[in-house]
């Protein structure tokens, strides 16, 4: 049979349609959803999907960023510009505030990171605003604990994920029923891969923060990763700061997100680079997953993104 006789959607259009369906279901069935927007590529895709799901009306939920205070300035600048363009409301939940109010204790030393502290700030913000659903950009291909996660993932009133007693998720019928104090995390990009995300960004011609493209910056090497150096960064004996041409595959805290040597300057070049890569994005760039065999699983159980 010829192709013309078999009209079909591209796999990106099929994934897009599935994600839009998920967003509309959650908007309809839960009372106070929020969309977690970090300025990273996955949540940039979420925003486009929300436009596709709800325009010409405004989004039926606000956006929220958990700001560690250690974000790349380029990303914060991008975040604010994108939110203004959309005309939507952004809530910024600040880890600094959690530290100042004594909810969490700042780690010290050269390896200090605010990565773990974010979980407290996130759960506090969810409780404070009474959110019952939080959209996130996590994908199942990212990490092995995530491969088991549902599209609608139930969290108890401590924000905990129990991987052993997840609700079965059948067809496209999602069970978002919760009691007061509980919430669901919603992952519309569950079935997308990193390459799908970049191809979609290219297809939709979405703007992304400049650090996703090749640029030169001062870095230092630690545990095999290239970390951005900035004023105030504590170095460990023997570490040196040098200029390197890098780009970022993921956008997290400056303190725990490594850059990769790259000359990719355009979306097409990034897509080519991702198609050819032999290392996973978290393995290449995230120190937070290197802590132990089950680092992500443990953080997720405690309520991490």
């Amino acid at each position, binding site marked *: 049979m010829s192709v013309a006789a078999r009209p079909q959607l591209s796999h990106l259009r099929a994934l897009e349609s599935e994600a*839009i369906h998920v967003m509309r279901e959650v908007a309809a069935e839960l009372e106070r959803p929020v969309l977690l927007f970090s300025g990273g590529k996955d949540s940039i895709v979420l925003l486009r999907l929300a436009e596709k799901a*709800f325009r010409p009306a405004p989004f039926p939920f606000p956006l929220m960023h958990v700001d560690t205070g250690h974000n790349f300035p380029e990303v914060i600048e991008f975040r604010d510009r994108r939110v203004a363009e959309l005309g939507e409301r952004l809530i910024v939940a600040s880890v600094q505030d959690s530290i100042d109010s004594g909810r969490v204790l700042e780690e010290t030393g050269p390896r200090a990171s605010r990565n773990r502290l974010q979980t407290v700030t996130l759960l506090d913000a969810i409780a404070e605003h009474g959110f019952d659903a939080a959209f996130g950009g996590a994908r199942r291909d990212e990490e092995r604990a995530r491969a088991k996660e549902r599209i609608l993932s139930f969290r108890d009133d401590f924000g905990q994920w129990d991987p052993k007693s997840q609700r079965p998720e059948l*067809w496209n019928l999602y069970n978002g029923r919760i009691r007061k104090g509980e919430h669901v995390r919603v992952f519309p990009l569950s079935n997308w891969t990193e390459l799908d995300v970049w191809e979609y960004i290219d297809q939709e011609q979405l703007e992304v923060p400049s650090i996703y493209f090749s640029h030169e910056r001062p870095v230092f090497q630690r545990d095999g990763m290239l970390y951005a150096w900035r004023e105030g960064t504590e170095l460990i004996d023997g570490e040196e700061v040098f200029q390197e041409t890098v780009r970022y595959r993921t956008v997290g805290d400056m303190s725990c997100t490594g850059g990769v040597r790259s000359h990719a300057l355009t979306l097409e070049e990034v897509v080519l680079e991702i198609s050819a890569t032999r290392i996973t994005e978290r393995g290449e760039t995230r120190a937070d997953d290197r802590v132990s*065999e089950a680092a992500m699983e443990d953080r997720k159980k405690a309520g991490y993104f």
Partner: protein
Amino acid sequence: MTLDLLRFTTAGSVDDGKSTLIGRLLYDSKQVFEDQLEHVAQASERRGGEGTLDLALLTDGLRAEREQGITIDVAYRYFATAKRRFIIADCPGHRQYTRNMVTGASTADVSVVLIDARQGVVEQSKRHAFISALLGIPEMVIAVNKMDLVDYSQDRFDEIVREFSGFVEHLAGVEHITYIPMSALNGDNVVDRSELMPWYAGPVLLDHLEQVEVAYDHPDAKAARFPVQWVVRPANGSSDYRGYAGQLASGALRRGDEITVLPSGARTRIAAIDTYDGELEEAMAPMSLTLRLEDDVDVSRGDLICHHDRSPVVDRELLADICWMTDEPLRSGGRYLLKHTSRSAAAIVQGIDDVVDVHTLQRSDPPAELALNDIGRVRLRTSTPLVFDPYTSNRRTGSFILIDEATNSTVGAGMIA
């Protein structure tokens, strides 16, 4: 329809080599990343595997799984070749097996049933085949694994094919079955053709998955079903825009089509098919879109829009096969929340007509209850009318879940007869 994305499901017990098979598929198709491989190498060594790679470890997810050497829950895995992208629903078989298999099968186009060549056809393989058929998967692959342990014997393979064919011919709904002899451990016939089984002339697993024809219905061949999810209505009064948003579950819709809104029965025409990327003349499943209608009829979430001359059933009484997924049994008189398309209703169990024996495929006399992992025919009555099709003609409008309102758990999966 999407033909370049294939979803398939595997199921198996701890020992029949399912994890090794998936690991082999990923490894031989060069989908394993260096850091994942390094991780597997280290873990294999820690477990005393002296320099060998235990590919099963590639599919380990949770700490408890690594500790106990088991798989706890359905995991989803992704890989791509030059020809297709694949989503694997990887279902553990040992505990809550029906629940896991049904979950994995509910979204799959192809089902890969594993058989250990030494054991032959066992209950689990029959159960998986039965569930695949019940869940409407027309394409089945029988992976006869561990051929290395039966000396790559053609006689043994033929024997298993005969035995399984005898079972499968009583299953309704399976259209094609492909039997492949393989050794996932050694990589025979998974991605690369085995030199040890020259008697086998059929496709190796990956080639087959790349080429298998996904059940495809031309958009015009299937009745259009559009469950309304959400009403798009800018709040600020400045606009009189009113659109009905949803995902087209099946078929095609065109601007100007005469449609009916169910269950009310109101009739009008499609004024416009809106998407963020502009208006469309026509749309097909599974697109998400927003419809504007010519007349001001009452439409809300849970309603279904279809062509007036191809209507589904509207009824408060249902007959359905239900897979029961929780310890507390389903009994006559039980009340649940039923979720079907974008509509939820209260449902009461009117009666249980039978339970299926997966060995013999016989349906029993009416049982007192359905226990965990049972599948049986159940009669239900709902608080409001549902708009549905038989599952065999439409997987989207023929399926539902039951939720226990006391625990909020999903306790049953239903396929309307």
